[in-house]
């Protein structure tokens, strides 16, 4: 069944705070082969002008996936996640994520379309500090393959 296009423009309230940790940054950096000392050494990060170690640019996926799960799992929308593939992804960094950041995200459905039996869902997470400083805008396209596709 095609997704309900009236979901376009729908927003979801902010979820729990995500606290960015030094060790999570290190773990993620190791997993993507990111060798910069700015991910691991607080002194090196401070020398480069950051408050603490910074996250690799795609680290934001952890926070945006958690934030947008509220859309993906919304029973009213009824997305069959077993049929979903990731079509595209964009991160706009208003500033790098830094260890110690306490982040909250609001999720938005930017677009819902059905073409050739496949559903195209564009979802966006606006990630900011608890104090409201914008940190990252994450936009992803999810494609749910139709039953016959």
């Amino acid at each position, binding site marked *: 069944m095609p997704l309900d296009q009236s979901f376009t423009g729908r927003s979801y309230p902010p979820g729990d705070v995500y606290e960015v940790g030094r060790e999570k940054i290190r773990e993620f950096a190791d997993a*993507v082969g*990111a060798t910069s000392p700015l991910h691991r050494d607080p002194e090196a990060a401070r020398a480069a002008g950051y408050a603490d170690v910074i996250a*690799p640019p795609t680290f934001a996926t952890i926070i945006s996936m958690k934030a947008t799960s509220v859309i993906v799992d919304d029973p009213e929308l009824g997305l069959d996640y077993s049929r979903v593939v*990731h079509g595209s*992804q964009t991160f706009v960094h208003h500033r790098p994520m830094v260890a110690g950041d306490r982040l909250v995200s609001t999720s938005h459905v930017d677009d819902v379309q059905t073409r050739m039996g496949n559903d195209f869902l564009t979802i966006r997470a606006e990630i900011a500090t608890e104090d409201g400083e914008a940190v990252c805008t994450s936009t992803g396209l999810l494609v749910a393959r139709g039953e016959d596709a």
Partner: protein
Amino acid sequence: MSRLPASKATLGDELPAKQVRVKRDDLVRYAGASLDFNPIHWNERFADEVGLPGVIAHGMLTMALANELVSDWVGDPGAVIETTTKFTRPVPVPNDGVGALLEITGKVTEVREDGTAKVSVTVTFEGQTVLGRPTATVKLG
């Protein structure tokens, strides 16, 4: 670590290319680090059932690897102000201890007055691109 100065970036510059081998244990490591535990990235049986050519790499891992080329070039991962890609072709990662070899290249496609530059990256596997128009925008020093 210092950021590449704007004076050192020229339209058409090629970034140092690299090859990255992705094996099954790399997928497990990335799953844990990213908290993306979708079984298509580690469970052969599940991947087969949903019609994939076996276990495939996380598209987001391939995106991250593409991004690292840019981070290394600019010298400061915090300089990456925008990164975008389409996921156009899956990368199967067989459980053979050899995995999949990705070739990653990049080129400066824009240098702007405001001190930013745009880099287009290409990631190929077995001679075919696997990401659609991956680009990163960096703030130069």
